[in-house]
């Protein structure tokens, strides 16, 4: 067994759009959205990989696919070296305990009718891991306090609507951590929170990682945030990974024109920017369109003829640094 906790090879998630009766009758082809179109990466034990991209780039779908929440196709999809097989009941039970998800919007990811203690300890109850009410409350208190809600018992019988956004996100985290996972998909966990609360939540996530040797797949559209917290960064555009490598390298010496466009507009502390900013032109194409060649070529400033004909393969330009571009 390698030290990779997650290994993904050629993951594809395609959604067929529902067509109306009239469209069916007219014999029009059903539109397919290639949300994720053949991506490969791996995450090591205790590592943070950030998936960065604009909305619609397929980063959330990637996270959901790994957790088996959307149907997908993949050449390889391994968790701790084992194929993720959710049809097998016993495997599914174990997998669900060790891989968890933290959602973007803490206002929607908590059942409004449940009290905090029930939300946090629900996984224990469902998996029959507690024997008595005292044990349940004790474990619930511990989980809440580890998530920074102290004293834990003060929060037991509150409803989500009685908590602030930051407190809610801490409840979400407490509930995800109670089963002791080793891998967490964090889907924009701080983007809905006030700037003043973000640091606290991020710090909590980093602390939990250190204590439990957690690996995160951190999904974000905020490149500077990814730079701050992650070991490696993967840049996604229209369902493809454009560039992947150590976060320092991506930020300081990204090779792909898309990466460059992103890092160029990123504010950097202490550096006064000279000259005008190179803002990317154009819009992201309609995801239902079939794009020949490189997905980025419609907006690429350095495109050539080959770019709109052939899809660029992933090249390893230096150890651990991958770029998908003909011009690199």
């Amino acid at each position, binding site marked *: 067994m390698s030290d990779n906790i997650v290994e993904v090879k050629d993951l594809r998630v395609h959604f067929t759009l529902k067509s109306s009766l009239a469209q069916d009758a007219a014999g029009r082809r059903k539109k397919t959205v290639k949300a994720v179109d053949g991506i490969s990466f791996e995450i090591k034990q205790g590592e943070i990989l950030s998936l960065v991209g604009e909305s619609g780039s397929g980063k959330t779908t990637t996270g959901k696919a790994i957790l088996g929440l959307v149907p997908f196709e993949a050449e390889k999809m391994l968790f701790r070296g084992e194929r993720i097989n959710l049809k097998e009941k016993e495997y599914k039970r174990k997998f669900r305990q060790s891989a968890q998800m933290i959602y973007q919007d803490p206002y929607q990811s908590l059942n409004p009718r449940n009290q905090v203690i029930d939300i946090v300890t629900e996984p224990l109850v469902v998996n029959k891991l507690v024997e008595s009410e005292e044990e349940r409350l004790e474990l619930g208190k511990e989980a809440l306090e580890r998530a920074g809600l102290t004293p834990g018992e003060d929060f037991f019988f509150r409803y989500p*609507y009685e908590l602030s956004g930051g407190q809610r996100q801490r409840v979400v985290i407490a509930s995800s951590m109670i089963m002791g996972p080793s891998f967490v998909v964090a889907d924009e966990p701080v983007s809905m929170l006030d700037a003043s609360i973000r640091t606290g939540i991020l710090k909590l996530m980093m602390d939990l990682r250190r204590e439990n040797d957690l690996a995160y797949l951190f999904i974000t559209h905020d490149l500077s945030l990814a730079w701050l917290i992650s070991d490696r960064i993967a840049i996604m555009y229209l369902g493809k990974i454009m560039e992947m490598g150590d976060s320092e390298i991506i930020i300081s010496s990204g090779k792909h024109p898309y990466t460059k466009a992103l890092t160029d507009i990123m504010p950097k502390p202490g550096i006064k920017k000279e000259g005008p900013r190179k803002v990317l032109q154009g819009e992201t194409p309609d995801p239902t369109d079939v794009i020949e060649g490189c997905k980025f070529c419609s907006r690429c400033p350095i495109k050539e003829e080959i770019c709109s004909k052939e899809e660029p393969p992933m090249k390893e330009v230096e150890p651990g640094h991958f770029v998908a571009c003909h011009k690199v």
Partner: protein
Amino acid sequence: MRKAYIIKKTIYALITILIVLVFNYILFRVLPGDPLSMLMRNPKATPEMIEHVEAMYGLDESWWVQFVTYFEDMFHGDLGTSFVYKEPVTAVIGPKILPTVILFGLAEILAIFVGILLGIIAAWKRGTKADVGTLGFALVTYSMPTFWLSMIMLSLFCVTLQIFPVGGMESPGMAFADMGTRFVDILHHLILPVITMSILLIGEYALTMRNALMDVLEEDYITTAKAKGFSSRYVLRRHAVPNAMLPMVTIIAINLGLVVGGAVQVETVFSWPGLGNLMYEALNSRDYPVLQGLFLLITVCVIVANYIADITYSYIDPRVKE
């Protein structure tokens, strides 16, 4: 917190009832038809006779004395005297309440259970044949005219197949039979109108439940629950359905209020001796006092049902407290 909420809702309900009382009074004073001609039904009445009747009913008093008397009597439980039956309105309406409550209570219970079940199946199996079938059934029955379905059921089951009695609540002479026989007889008469009314109600419940549940199933906390490894059934039972039930409470409450009034068509077709039938007869014979009494009863029922819904809400949805 909750206490204040309940008190507030109670006061609102009482104010609404008061407004209804005033409105009910005005409505029947502006309707066409002179109460005297309807009372006497004698075009040759002498002025002395008219004066006598006027004094008897207090119609010679000024409008505000009549208004005050109306309120006074109302609080003593006196709703006036029926033009047709020449009996107190309460005595006319009273015995009709139970048959209606039995008929529509059963129909509601049946419709709620079947409707919610169909709605859950449709939402859970979205896009499958089960969903399309439920949707089709719900839309067809929901848009069907009440009297039409009642008549079709009547002609099919009572005339062609002759499985059920044609109408009424009891077979003639049953008043002399023993309790057991009478009970079975009433049950036999009940089945068809109950099923008819349920069919008409199921559509609304199924559609509302389907929509509410589909909305809830899209929520992040459902995906979160799935990601935690809870079984589909568990997620549906513990997280999805309880949250989808909130809008159901409202429409169930409104329908419960309408139970009393919505009876008119079904009761008339099936000759069910209930409030709806009485209303139909009172309308035909312009029996204004009885109509006024029925209107009052129906509006009060609707208000009370909504009041109960509000209170229920505060228990099942922790967010409702303001």
